[in-house]
């Protein structure tokens, strides 16, 4: 009997040819048996999404199928008339998009969207479909499965939406499930349980799955076999075990190499900790900040409460926390974009004025902000040399030859060829944009560099290379870094000191090696536990730990009473943690934890 899915040297090119010399997909062949999970891995631009979509007989606008076959249970999808293709989609093959937030129609109720396809294809009656949906919600561990369908997408959390999309995909009992980076947009803590849910439900439905990702450690958890895709061609093809442990090709090894080691204190030299001066380069004192009218009490949303952090000269402070914990806000306050409500920002001991306008140009020049999304941070209508040139004119009045020289230097610093100065942002890849973004900040020759999620939008290899770059910069210059990320391993691999932020509160901070070693704050522990490892079975192992068990995706609530982590905390003490604000426990060596539990208990 034939495999469930067979792709025979498929070629996909840009419509009208000319536009792109190299085909996007170039003679790819692979096959996938029923009930099997095949991981499709590759960096951005490798064409993995395009390949995945071909299994629905769909090519994105601007692309077209040139050659080859895509056979599902033997019949060629590409050859099907439009109508048949339509009936195939959502019924025999269904698709799980990367960002559920974008893929759910904001104007329609969730239930309707989940059941729509299967009802329309006449597989189920509306009532059957609803029942099936409810079962799926339950299977996916979603809260309040009976009424979930009546809600609108904006009324549920990101992690839940991601799982709801799985329900949407599975509702029609498809033979093949295509998952396109389904967890990339999620926080680590959310990621594991979504991952788990997917894994279970796929098993239980007995559907085959094509799992597209750039993250090997995810693959390790869920896939049976792996296809490594590079520049539209299959680089390597084998079982998870083979690929992970006996990689053949250069690129595959590179991929594995790029996987950041799980955070581990032992990896770090003790020495760094001692070299801290008394006057930090940057210090933030009992800072409270938020949005809404300042003095009107109550109306304001406090995003940060009594935050106190410091960065030593030439050191790097890593700020970690889930989305919405206020880490970006911290950066905005330091930069002056968002004036603080209370508290001070001290540069070399001297307080800065809260708002941009009041700060002197000299001070502004010393603190530079590297924004998260290079796409938004670089004005698409300015060439690279304009982008880099402006700070040079603005702060140092450079012009002409001098300026050009410096621009070339900067490009060199971020490892970009000089001729890039002629390009527009949209002519650059994501990684290149991020480097330009960085170079612009460096152009001001700052003392403090605020890096807000600079690598979270990039895939592994590129991310790794950016971190390498940052490390080099830190050694060459004595710039101090505030490195903000939701990715603990990234922080671990870069930061000297770490501050763990939860719901606007610093729950633990100190030298990296201390924070990453027991005693942990329960939340820190959860974070560490959630970082996926490049070993099969890790997922199951972690999920057995009660920390993670306990912390199954719950809404983060920002509260003034008690400990905000209370509802998720495995060690929570009822009556105390939800009533009194936790005390700050100083453990020496600048290491402190904010918790009711004693050091020993932790």
């Amino acid at each position: 009997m034939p495999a469930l899915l067979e792709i025979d040297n498929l070629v996909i090119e840009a419509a009208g040819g000319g536009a792109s010399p190299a085909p996007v997909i170039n003679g790819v062949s692979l096959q996938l048996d029923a009930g099997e999970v095949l991981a499709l891995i590759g960096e951005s631009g490798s064409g993995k999404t395009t390949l995945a979509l071909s299994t629905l007989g769909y090519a994105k606008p601007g692309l077209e199928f040139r050659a080859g076959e895509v056979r599902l249970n033997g019949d060629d999808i590409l050859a099907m008339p439009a109508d048949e293709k339509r009936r195939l989609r959502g019924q025999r093959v269904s698709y799980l998009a990367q960002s559920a937030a974008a893929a759910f129609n904001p104007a329609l109720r969730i239930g309707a969207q989940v059941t729509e396809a299967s009802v329309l294809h006449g597989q189920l009656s509306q009532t059957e479909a609803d029942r099936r949906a409810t079962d799926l919600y339950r299977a996916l561990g979603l809260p309040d499965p009976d009424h979930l369908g009546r809600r609108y997408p904006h009324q549920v959390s990101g992690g839940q939406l991601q799982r709801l999309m799985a329900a949407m995909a599975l509702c029609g009992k498809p033979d093949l499930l295509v998952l396109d980076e389904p967890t990339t947009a999620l926080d680590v803590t959310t990621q594991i349980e979504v991952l788990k849910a997917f894994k279970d439900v796929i098993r239980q439905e007995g559907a085959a799955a094509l799992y597209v990702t750039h993250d090997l450690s995810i693959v390790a958890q869920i896939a049976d076999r792996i296809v490594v895709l590079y520049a539209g061609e299959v680089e390597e093809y084998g079982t998870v075990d083979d690929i992970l442990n006996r990689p053949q090709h250069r690129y595959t090894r590179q991929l594995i190499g790029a996987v950041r080691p799980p955070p581990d204190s032992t990896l770090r030299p003790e020495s760094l900790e001692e070299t801290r001066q008394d006057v930090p380069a940057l210090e933030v004192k009992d800072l409270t900040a938020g949005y809404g009218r300042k003095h009107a009490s109550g109306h304001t949303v406090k995003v940060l409460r009594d935050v106190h952090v410091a960065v030593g000269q030439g050191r790097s402070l890593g700020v970690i926390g889930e989305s919405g914990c206020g880490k970006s806000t911290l950066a905005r306050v330091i930069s002056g974009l968002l004036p603080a409500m209370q508290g001070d920002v001290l540069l070399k001991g001297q307080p800065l004025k809260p708002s941009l306008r009041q700060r002197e140009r000299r001070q502004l020049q010393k603190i530079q902000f590297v924004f998260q999304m290079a796409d938004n941070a670089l004005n698409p209508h300015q060439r690279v040399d304009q982008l880099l040139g402006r700070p040079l004119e603005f702060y140092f009045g450079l012009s002409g030859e001098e300026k050009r020289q410096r621009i070339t230097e900067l490009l060199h610093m971020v490892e970009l060829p000089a001729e890039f100065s002629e390009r527009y942002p949209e002519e650059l890849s994501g990684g290149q944009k991020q480097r330009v973004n960085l170079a612009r900040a460096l152009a001001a020759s700052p003392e403090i560099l605020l890096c807000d999620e600079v690598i979270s939008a990039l895939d592994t290899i590129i991310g790794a290379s950016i971190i390498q770059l940052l490390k080099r910069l830190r050694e060459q210059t004595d710039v101090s870094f505030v490195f903000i990320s939701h990715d603990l391993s990234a922080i671990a691999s870069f930061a000297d000191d770490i501050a763990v932020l939860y719901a606007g509160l610093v729950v633990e901070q100190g030298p990296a090696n201390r924070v990453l070693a027991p005693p942990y704050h329960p939340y820190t522990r959860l974070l560490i536990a959630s970082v996926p490892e490049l070993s099969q079975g890790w997922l199951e192992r972690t999920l057995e730990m009660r920390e993670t068990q306990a912390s199954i995706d719950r809404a983060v609530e920002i509260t003034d009473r008690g400990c905000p982590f209370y509802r998720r905390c495995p060690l929570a003490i009822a009556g105390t943690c939800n009533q009194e604000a936790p005390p700050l426990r100083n453990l020496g060596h600048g290491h402190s934890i904010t918790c009711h539990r004693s050091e020993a208990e932790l």
Partner: protein
Amino acid sequence: MSTPVNNPTGESGQTGAISEEQPRRSLKFSGAGKTGIVVILFWITMVFIGPWVAPFHEAEFLDEALFIEPGLDDPYPATDFLPPGDVAYLGTDYLGRDTLSRLLYGARTTIGVSLLSTLLAYLIGITLGIAAAAGGRVLDSSLSRLNDAVLSMPTIMLGMVVISAYGSTLPVLIALTSLIYASSVFRIARAFGLDIMVSDFVDAARVRGEGLGWIIRREVLPGMILPMASDFGLRFVYIILFLSGLSFLGLGVQPPQSDWGSMVRENLAGLPYGAIAPLIPALAIASLTVAINLVVDDISAHHGGKLAEKII
């Protein structure tokens, strides 16, 4: 790391369910768009050379002698509403003037006035629009209210009042029209302005310590040009029609100057006689309108049609 045309970047997770295609920088015109451009270019040239290629002066009453039939000896043949002939290639109007000549002269007034008004409208609208977007809450709301008030007034009425007050000289017409249409430009400019003001690259400029003026000039304006350009076309057409509407009420361009709208109006009496005098200028307007919008469609298509919710 080369970026192929289709770049399914796993990166752009936040921007779309399925990673999106990179926009192409070069703006490509469809066949329709190209024809549009040709027509526009034709009229533009007419604006400059029209009077010289025109067989007669726009105000000239053609001499009856030109039309005397050899056969019958009528010394004074009718010269009005003549069908196209070898004297007047597009026939004559209600006063026996050459339609073609008036059409060519008219191109100058019609397009000239409309273009000038549109440009002015943009100058005013964009300036105020950005001021509102960048100038803080108070300025914004006061400007917006004022603008709503102007918008709420029926344009023709506004035109009547102003023209009754200041007469219908070209400067007045242009000032009036540009003011009326500046209000709709304001809305769009403000909408775009607000979008751009909150973008990261503007924040980046602010963190750098840039002044508002620089930010507007260098960060905000460039991003508005293309989308506004495609609105420009529509606006331009509305202004031509608005002027023709005024001419219906006798408030339009001065005689003997010919603008297409008035030409249609003044020759309506010929319609029952099957005269083409009123249809020719109407066709001219239509040709320009369609042409412009074909181009506009291409531009905004290139721009991802993001105008829709802003141009209303």
